[in-house]
Structures are given as C-alpha cells and as structure tokens.
C-alpha cells in the first residue's frame, strides 16, 4: 500500500474541508479524484502531500507521515508556483539539486514531447508553464503522484499533450491521483474514481465496474454529484 487515509477530517476553523475519509491507494492505479468546486479534492491531495495536517484521523504514505515521505512523492499543486525568472534549465537545476530521483534525460525528453519553449516562465503562456511544471513533476522517478488540477485553464492542445504524457510515463508500480474538472477528457486514464461531495466520500469505484454497468465516469459524475 502506497498511502492510507483513516477516518481523516480536516477543519478550517468551523468549515470542514474533508470529513471522515478512509481510502487506500495501492500501486498500479490511476485514480481520478472528482467533485464539484469546494468538494474537498485539493484538501485531500494536500493532506496526502503533507501540506496540511489532519484535524482528526491519520495518514500514512510509504508507511510514514506524509512529510517524512516528501522525497518519494510528487505533488503538483493547482497554483502556478514557478518563479518568473526561471527557465527550463533553472527548473532542471532546482529539481536535480533537491530531488535525488530527478531524471535529467527524462526531463529533456518531456520538454521536447510537451513542446516547452526554452525561455523564462514570465515569457511563457499559462499552458506552457503548466507543461513545464508537469515535465518537472513527471521527470522524477517517484512512486506516488498527486496532481491537483494540472489541466485547469490550459488550452485543448496542451491538455491533450499533458494527458498523453501521463499515459506514456505511467508505470504499474506507481499510483497517480489526478483531480480535474476535465472529466470527459481524462476519463480514459482512470482505473479508479473517487467522487467527493461536500468533503465526504460519495463514491469510490473502479472504472471497470462502471463500464460493466454500462456507465461512463462522466455519467456517474452527474448522477452522484448532481
């Protein structure tokens, strides 16, 4: 088991981000974390990354507290976190210097595949910055990937490139948790889908089971969360 959440609740003052989540994440799955705005998707991913601490319950990643596992997992947040002066080669130096599992050759391949321009991020479009961030994330040989809205605000062509990279780079000993609003586009990626509603688990099912019922992930999204 790569990660386990046991009865996890996160409160922000009087507001509940997530409540009573118990989920296991084994290797070999691409998990779609789906829900409406404010349903707790980002909170859940940040809890797994160790960026937030649970108010109740426990989280283990690689049998340790999430923060102790930072070197072994990837978190790609929804905010644009690159410094404006950064070029792809600065990003490479940053990642290679801080993460032992960063693969420089793979990074260059990803830059080419995702067509990331070699200029400062302040001169890049949002889509280009998103692709650079994804290249930085996927160039690590980690086992647990937490991708929070990597497709948000990115044009259709860039979104396709990102999804193609995710498919190409994924290995069976890894797990990817991907939260997105672009459910229809990402549907084909998912092995499993976790639907959240108001911070609670609404449905946790395999994509295979949905297909066996003759339903799509999008259809189920509408049924469960409408």
């Amino acid at each position: 088991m790569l990660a386990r959440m046991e009865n996890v609740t996160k409160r922000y003052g009087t507001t509940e981000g997530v409540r009573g989540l118990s989920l296991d994440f084994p290797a070999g799955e691409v998990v779609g974390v789906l829900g409406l705005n404010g349903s707790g998707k980002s909170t859940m991913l940040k809890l797994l990354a160790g960026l937030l601490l649970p108010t109740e319950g426990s989280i283990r990643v690689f049998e340790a507290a999430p923060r102790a596992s930072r070197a072994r997992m990837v978190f790609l947040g929804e905010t644009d976190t690159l410094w404006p002066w950064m070029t792809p080669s600065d990003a490479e130096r940053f990642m290679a210097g801080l993460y032992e599992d960063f693969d420089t050759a793979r990074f260059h391949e990803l830059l080419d595949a995702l067509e990331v321009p070699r200029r400062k991020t302040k001169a890049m479009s949002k889509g280009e910055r998103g692709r650079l961030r994804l290249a930085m994330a996927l160039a690590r040989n980690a086992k647990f990937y937490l991708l929070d809205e990597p497709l948000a605000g990115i044009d259709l062509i860039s979104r396709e490139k990102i999804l193609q990279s995710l498919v190409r780079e994924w290995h069976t000993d890894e797990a990817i948790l991907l939260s997105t609003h672009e459910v229809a586009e990402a549907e084909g990626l998912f092995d499993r889908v976790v639907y959240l509603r108001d911070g609670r688990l609404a449905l946790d099912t395999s994509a295979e089971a949905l297909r066996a019922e003759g339903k799509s992930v999008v259809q189920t999204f509408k049924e469960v969360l409408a």
Partner: protein
Amino acid sequence: MRSFRTLLWLEHRRSWVWAVSLLGSLAFWAWGIKQVLVMDAAERLGIRSGLLGLAAAIGAVILCLMIGRIRSETRHGQYQVLLLTPPSGYSHVAARYLYVAAVAVVYFVAIGFLYWWIAALAGIHLDSQSLFELILALPFYLMSVTMLPLLAWTLLLMVFISAYRISGPGWIPGTVMILGTPFVVRWLWDGIIRIAYSLPGWKLFTNAPYALIQRFGEIEEDVSVALNQGIYEGLPLEPMLILLAVSVVLLIAAGRIWQEVEA
C-alpha cells in the same frame, strides 16, 4: 550538501538584484564622500564618517528587507513549493540566512575599507594591525551585536507571518511579536550591561590613537591616560557572545516553524 548548495543558488537567483544594488550603492557613497569639501580636516573626516554611518544604517534596512521578502514568498504559492522539497526547514532557513549574512559581511567589510580610505584622505595612516581591525574585526563585532541578530529576528518574523498569515486570524500573535520586541530587547540589553566585562575585553585599535596623534598632534587627555595606564578595557565580549547565541536560537525557532507549518 548538494541540496544545500542548490538552496544557496536559489537564494542567489531570487536575491541577486538586491545584493548587487546594495553593493553597487557603495560606489554612490564613495562618490558622495569625495564631494565633501569642508576646509577643516577634522570636520571633513567627521562628516565623511557620518555619511558612512548613514550608508551602514541604510544597508541594514535593505538587508532586512532582503531577508524578509514576505510578499514574494507567499505569492503564487512558492512557499508551498519550498515546503514540499526534501531539505528540512532548518536547511531552508540556514540557506537564506547564510546568503544574506554573506552579502552583509561583504557590504560592511567594504564600508570598513571606505573608513580606511577616508582616514587616508585625512592623512591618517593606519598600521597593518589597525587596518585589519578596521576592515575585519570591527565589522565582525558590530555585525555580531547588531546585524546578525536583527537578520535572524527578521527571518523568524517572516517565517512566522508566512506560516500563520498575519493578515488572517494569525495577526494577533504576529502583532504581539512585533510589539513585544522592544521590551525583549530592553530586557536583553539590561542583562548584557549587568554582566559586561565579566570576561576580558577585546582590545581593538590600541595602535590607532598614535596615528591620530601623528596626524592631529594631540588627542584628548583622558584617552591618552587610559591607553598609557592600561585602563582601556576594549570592547566587551559578552554582547557578542550572547547575541550570537540569540541569533542561533532565533534561527532554530524559524526552522522549527518551517517544519511544522501548513501550506
């Protein structure tokens, strides 16, 4: 070690404009000093010394702003990125502190050189020991009792504010911290005064008055008596040792907050 070097590089990339501007400003001060053309040599030396004192004070403020960088830290979630990296909070805090402290050392040593220069312009020729004391020992002492704890305090404040969002519900402890600082400084100062000179003083510039005598003919009688009779005790070591220790404690606290904080 590689990760610490990377953090230092990151600090440099984020702050080099500040650092270069600060060090470049010394050219402006040197130019300003040359513009002081008062006839009396002692008065000219005094004005020039005052200008360098002003340069030091302005530099101190800029260094604090440089290490603070509250806005750029929280913008675009970059703090979040740094929190996620494997190096500990202590490493992040140490890298930032080390970078800014290194810039401060270069700046204040350069100001020491400028003091030597204005002394030379005034016809005071320091021997090699006094020169060493002016450009290295005195800046080290003054930085230890002022800049290093001030930078550590600013860094702690910055981490505190970034961590607990002083603009949000965390503003009360942040405000208490800021308002409480003068009282803590006063308490610390009183304590230091009480124990000052328990250790032998650091006797700097024992040769310098003779250079002054050579140039200006005489020095005040009590200074002369103090030197000749061994009354000159030098600079007290206790403030330096205590404030260096305080700096370390502040940095450890900043590192600890970094370790515990939520993004």
